[in-house]
């Protein structure tokens, strides 16, 4: 209990719709320790991103709340930096300037100009992007953009790093590279991380704990799986590891058996069938 860094307590959220409030999340409870890497996994539409946005302060919980180091948070701030799925770099600024914007905002009055420059370069070096300091986002590849996005978030020196499917839009090879980079950085800095993913391998490879969410509406936490694999982890060595494969199959079982999501191929037809079934 003393170790709890971030606590989600009875978090529920309703979205207003024309036919009354829609409960997207119902009573999500989660405690995260300092330096822990937690993945949120679940089918699309289950409210993973909503959980993250509530922690980030971009959404307000209807009930319950978030405690960070014992203090309630209800607005966005740089101590909960977000890495967005589609990088969200400002397209008119260079790599360096994108990170600089964050650094200037967070460390104004605390760091001298030189210290800021060193800090920006240090963070870009962490993600191996010092070769493209003066490139604009449209001049670098998708993986590089995401690296800069991570550098920007790290440069805010956040208490919690929030990652919203950070590698979801990347090809498999680039994704693997970035996962390795992320593990390296994590080993070095020991950040507290919440990452959303729908990739089972990614979740098992990177996390200390995997939080599996049930399907919406009124989604909540279904199961929590501890990943006790030793670090540093190597994706090739783990491929044949029995523990790894066991964990992997546990997540798969949850997703595809316990929480199987049946998406109708033709929604209209499916609705009609459902109505017929109800009538019968």
């Amino acid at each position, binding site marked *: 209990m003393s170790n709890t860094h971030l606590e989600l307590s009875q978090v529920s959220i309703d979205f207003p719709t024309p036919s009354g409030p829609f409960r997207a999340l119902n009573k999500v409870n989660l405690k995260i320790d300092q330096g822990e890497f937690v993945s949120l996994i679940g089918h699309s539409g289950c409210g993973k991103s909503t959980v993250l946005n509530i922690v980030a302060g971009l959404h307000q919980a209807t009930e319950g709340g978030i405690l960070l180091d014992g203090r309630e948070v209800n607005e*966005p*701030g*740089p101590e909960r930096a*977000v890495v*967005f799925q589609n990088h*969200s770099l*400002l397209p*008119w600024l260079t790599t360096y300037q994108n990170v600089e914007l964050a650094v200037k*905002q967070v460390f104004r009055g605390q760091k001298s100009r030189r210290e800021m420059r060193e800090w920006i370069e240090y963070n870009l070096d962490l993600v191996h992007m010092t070769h493209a300091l003066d490139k604009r986002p449209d001049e670098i590849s998708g993986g590089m953009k995401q690296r800069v996005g991570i550098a920007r978030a790290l440069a805010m020196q956040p208490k919690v790093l929030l990652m919203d499917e950070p590698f979801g839009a990347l090809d498999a090879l680039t994704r693997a590279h970035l996962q390795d980079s992320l593990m390296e950085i994590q080993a070095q800095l020991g950040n507290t991380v919440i990452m959303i993913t729908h990739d089972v391998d990614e979740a098992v490879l990177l996390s200390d704990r995997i939080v599996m969410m049930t399907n919406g509406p009124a989604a909540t936490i279904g199961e929590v799986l501890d990943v006790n694999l030793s670090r540093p982890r190597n994706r090739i060595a783990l491929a044949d590891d029995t523990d790894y494969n066991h964990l992997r199959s546990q997540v798969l079982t949850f997703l595809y058996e316990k929480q199987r999501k049946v998406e109708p191929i033709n929604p209209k037809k499916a609705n009609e069938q459902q109505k017929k079934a109800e009538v019968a």
Partner: protein
Amino acid sequence: MSAALATLNRINPARWTVTVWRDLALKLTFPALGLALFLGFWHLGAQQINTSLGTFPGPAEVYSQWTNLVDEHRQEKAREAEFYQRQQERNAQRLAADPNAEVRWRDFNGRPTFFSQIRTSLWTVMAGFGLATVIAIPAGIIIGLNQNVYRAVNPIIQVFKPVSPLAWLPLVTLVVSAVYVSDDPMFSRSFLVSMITVTLCSLWPTLINTTVGVNSVSKDLLNVSQVLRLNWFTHVRRIIIPSAIPMMFTGLRLSLGIAWMVLIAAEMLAQNPGLGKFVWDEFQNGSSDSLGRICVAVLVIGFIGYLLDRAMLALQGWVNWDKTAVMR
């Protein structure tokens, strides 16, 4: 360095391949063909039209009127130079005879030539368009940032947007006459009336496009701004304005086009000594040269409008961060 070499290669005819030549030929042939056809139809068509001022001028007649206008301008400039020289000599003589003599320095009061009228028109349109921009961009940012302000203002914008300059002009004339009363006016009334009419008509595209640009800033970037806790001013300067710049320039280009069109009409009625007044005076004058001179004015008006649009495009290319944006 390699970029410079590449440019050198591109402009070195010795290295041009057949494709480059063919490309260039195609690029030049068709515009030339279009122009030739246009001049041909104009020449033949003009002969068929008989007006009360004689036959409609063809390309040759219009060209000779153009040279006339250039000559008139040169003569007027020469007269002006002579006038000032004479004045200088006269005053120098008088001062030499009596150092305490009161000498008067008069401004040359010649007829405005075609080219000084062009200058007046450009100055008026720039003043009106500048004023419109200074109003429209900040207003557009404020309207775009707040949905309720947008709801409040939008109906008003939609009603005023389609109003013709000819409808504004009498109102502007009366208001300027009533409000701008000065013994030593800095601006002539006709200038103010034309300028304000241009402003009133060219305001709207910039205003609307800025509003839309500000309103459609990507949600992701707004989230970034929130996470960074940017204050309002920084948020507008670092996120909103750069995002909206492409839309702003779309609006500015439309506005400048409208401003130039409106200006000619406004100058005709307000008697501001610019191109509009030139056309009107030639029309009233009704000499056998008038139609040709009006045709010259039409072509010059069109050409200047084109140059203004290109200048705006160049400015956009310079200011806009998105260098890949297609500009035409």
